[in-house]
Each structure stands twice: as structure tokens, then as C-alpha cells.
């Protein structure tokens, strides 16, 4: 993966900044409809019957501009969640004590002024709180106290590291990011993270290229050994996530003439057991403006919840429930059902 874009697609005025252009590009690949493939394997349309994870995307602002970013996040993006919307998230949690996990993502979610409010409220309500962290944000002068804040609230850190070596990490995430990531991991380890003592530090691997992730357990062994031996860094679990063919990764696929091959790979690798475990069945995704989605990927394609389910936080608060809910799907969904499957919690099938 080479020639990193320096700006978001939106700032470059790129055609693929618009979700309809992304959907059209995927359609040109000519692969079969996702629900037709589900039916071919004896599966009906995807439905959500539980909310085990409330995933809140607080906005697109980020201190990095990664080549594969499905959010098209970057320092130039200004979409951030307001206090009012964050308060609605907290109210939703309060009214739904059965939602065990609050998963906060972005962008770099820590840069949003509402991040600490959400963490503190989620923790106070006894929820498992996850911070999807790009690591380098922990080194920013404005975030010097962030590691201590996360530790004090027992926040689970889910950190991106696509390779245990510099070349792969920097190729995808930007020059010098690997070295910063190691520094940040050392800070987390020093605060007690990743040592099996209750402060969970999990890493997220996604392929540095146009292929599926390798075996999650095997990669975890490599990561643990290499990071410990070469850098003295420890962590708890490694999760593999497939690159989703949308936004900047879609741009990469088109620029390198790999889109057709990649879509064919995803469809050929369709795994019905992965379809049984996809995260949209148990997640509810909230956008920075309070719109509801079945997952973070649908959020970026601006495909809100539908089929009669409430489409906004305030709509859900007024109506009371978003279940059962038929999931909105598209050709990008093949990214979650290929091989061992993919979710924000890693592989979902053998």
C-alpha cells in the first residue's frame, strides 16, 4: 500500500467522498446481491435481536490520515458530536441497562470534547467502555493525561496496529506512526494495561493490502512474541478485521486496479458461519449527529437503520426500542462475511 493520501477524500473533492458514488463503484463490480448469496446458503435477511454493543462514533476528526480509513477521517474533518447528542447517548444507556458495552470510536474519539463525558458516564453506569484508539493520539501534548484518565475509568483500549513492523504500519497509517505507536503502547503498559490485571489492551490488525487477514490466533502469537522480544511490549488479545471496500480503501482499490479482484475474493470467500455471527446482529451504531445505523460501515455509506426501526437517537428515546430490526445491507457486507469473518471484535467464525 503506497502513495498515502495526505488529505481526506472530502478535502480533495474526490468523487468517492460521496456515499452514492461508493455504492455505484461496488455495483460496477457485478458481484451478486448480498441477500441473494445469503439465500443461496439458506439464510434469510440479517436481523438484529439484541443490542450487546452500543457503538458511538463521535466524529471524523483524527490526527492521522490512514490510507485504508473507512471513515475518511483526518485532521481536516470537522464533524464532531455535540454535547446535546452525547447526553442523548447517556440517556439511552440509562434507559437500557441491558446494553453491556459502550464502544466509542471515530476518527480519533479522544479528540472530541464529549469523549471524557461519555467515558465517565458509561463507567459510572457500570458498562464495559471501549476506546478505539489510534495510539498516536496518546502522545499529543493536549492528551498527556489521557492514559491516566482511561486507566482510572477502567476503559478497554482497542488499538490499531496493522503490523508489528514499521514498514507495514507506516505504509498504511503514515510515516513515523509505528514508532509513535510503540511509544504509546509503552505508556499503556507502564499504566498497567495489557498485563492481565484488569486493564485490557487489545490490538487490531487489518491487512496492509488487498487480501484477507490471516488466522487471528496465529497472528496473535506472532505479534505477542515479536512485540515482547523486540520492544518489550505486552498486550492481551489481537483482533483481525477485514478491510472494507468503502471510502479510502475503495479509492485504493480503484487506483491500483484491484477492485474487481477484491470483490471477487470477498464473494468467493463468503462463509455462512461468518454471516451467522456478523456484528450488526448485536450492535447498534450511533453517528456523530445522532443518526442510528446497523453498523459503522453503513454509517459511512449513510445507510441509516430502516425497515421501520427508529433512525435517530431522539426517535429511539421517544419510541423506546429498536428491536427486532432488519439490517440494511449492501455489497460492502461481503467484507464482514469473508473467510473467518470480520467484526469490530475480530474474526467471528472458524
Amino acid at each position: 500500500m503506497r502513495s498515502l493520501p495526505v488529505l481526506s477524500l472530502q478535502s480533495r473533492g474526490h468523487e468517492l467522498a460521496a456515499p452514492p458514488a461508493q455504492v455505484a463503484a461496488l455495483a460496477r463490480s457485478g458481484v451478486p446481491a448480498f441477500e441473494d448469496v445469503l439465500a443461496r446458503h439458506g439464510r434469510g435477511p440479517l436481523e438484529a435481536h439484541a443490542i450487546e454493543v452500543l457503538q458511538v462514533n463521535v466524529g471524523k476528526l483524527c490526527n492521522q490520515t490512514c490510507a485504508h480509513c473507512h471513515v475518511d477521517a483526518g485532521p481536516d474533518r470537522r464533524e464532531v458530536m455535540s454535547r446535546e447528542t452525547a447526553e442523548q447517548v447517556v440517556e439511552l444507556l440509562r434507559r437500557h441497562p441491558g446494553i453491556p458495552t459502550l464502544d466509542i470510536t471515530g476518527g480519533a474519539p479522544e479528540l472530541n470534547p464529549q469523549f471524557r463525558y461519555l467515558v465517565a458516564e458509561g463507567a459510572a453506569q457500570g458498562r464495559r467502555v471501549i476506546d478505539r484508539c489510534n495510539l498516536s493520539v496518546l502522545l499529543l501534548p493536549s492528551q498527556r493525561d489521557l492514559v491516566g484518565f482511561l486507566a482510572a475509568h477502567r476503559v478497554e483500549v482497542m488499538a490499531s496496529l496493522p503490523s508489528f513492523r514499521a514498514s507495514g504500519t507506516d505504509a498504511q497509517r503514515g510515516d513515523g506512526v509505528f514508532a509513535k505507536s510503540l511509544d504509546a503502547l509503552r505508556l499503556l503498559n507502564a499504566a498497567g494495561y495489557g498485563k492481565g490485571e484488569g486493564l485490557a489492551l487489545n490490538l487490531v490488525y487489518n491487512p496492509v493490502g488487498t487480501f484477507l487477514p490471516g488466522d487471528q490466533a496465529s497472528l496473535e502469537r506472532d505479534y505477542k512474541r515479536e512485540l515482547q522480544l523486540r520492544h518489550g511490549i505486552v498486550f492481551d488479545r489481537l483482533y483481525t478485521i477485514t478491510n472494507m471496500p468503502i471510502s479510502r480503501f475503495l479509492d485504493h482499490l480503484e487506483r491500483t486496479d484491484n477492485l474487481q479482484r477484491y470483490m471477487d475474493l470477498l464473494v468467493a470467500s463468503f462463509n455462512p458461519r461468518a454471516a451467522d455471527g456478523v456484528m450488526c446482529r448485536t450492535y447498534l451504531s450511533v453517528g456523530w449527529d445522532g443518526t442510528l445505523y446497523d453498523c459503522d460501515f453503513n454509517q459511512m455509506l449513510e445507510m441509516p437503520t430502516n425497515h421501520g426501526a427508529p433512525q435517530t437517537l431522539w426517535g429511539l428515546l421517544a419510541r423506546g426500542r429498536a428491536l427486532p430490526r432488519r439490517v440494511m445491507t449492501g455489497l460492502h457486507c461481503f467484507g464482514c462475511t469473508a473467510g473467518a469473518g470480520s467484526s469490530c471484535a475480530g474474526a467471528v467464525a472458524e
Partner: protein
Amino acid sequence: MAETYYCPHDLPRFGEMGKDRPELWAKFLDYYNAVFADGALTAREKALIALGVAHAVQCPYCIDAYTQAALQNGSDREQMTEAVHVACAIRGGASLVHGVQMRNVADKVGM
């Protein structure tokens, strides 16, 4: 007949070797899959070894397959290039060490 002996489209047809003697193919696949399962070596390490061997035996199908497998399992170009150099060093060394035979013969019959 194809115009060339090697054709990329033949790689996904590898399974056709299961025709006619399927029991032998099944035994081969069982063994193959067991070899590449995570063991004392990780899938990434095995893919790197396979990549080196692929270059030593100069099999274009294997080079294609194990370049992708090495990447998929988390290796990068630098590591993969080193694996190819290992294959090259062993092949080159194997030629060179046979030079001792040459020297033995020359010592025997020469003056």
C-alpha cells in the same frame, strides 16, 4: 493445449488433481493442511519457508500463492525478500559446495 506450459488460470484448478485417484488427493490434502496448521511454527513462519522453497523449486504457482499467503499472515516485503535470499544462498551454496567434488576429481587425475 495451452500456448504456454504455465498459465495463471491453472492455479485454482489444482483441485482437479483429485479426479481419478481421489483417495490419494485426500491423503495429500490432509497432510498438506496438517503441515500448514499452526504448530511450533506460526502460519506466518511457515508461509515464509514455503515462499523460500517456492523460489528454490522455481514454481510460479507456489510463488504466487505463497507471496499472498505470506502477506496475508503478516509478513512484509523486507522479510519476504530475505526469505528469497535464503533460498538463493542455499541454491548457490549447493552449487559451490559441489566444487569440492570437482577439486577431488581434478586432484585425482590432474598433475
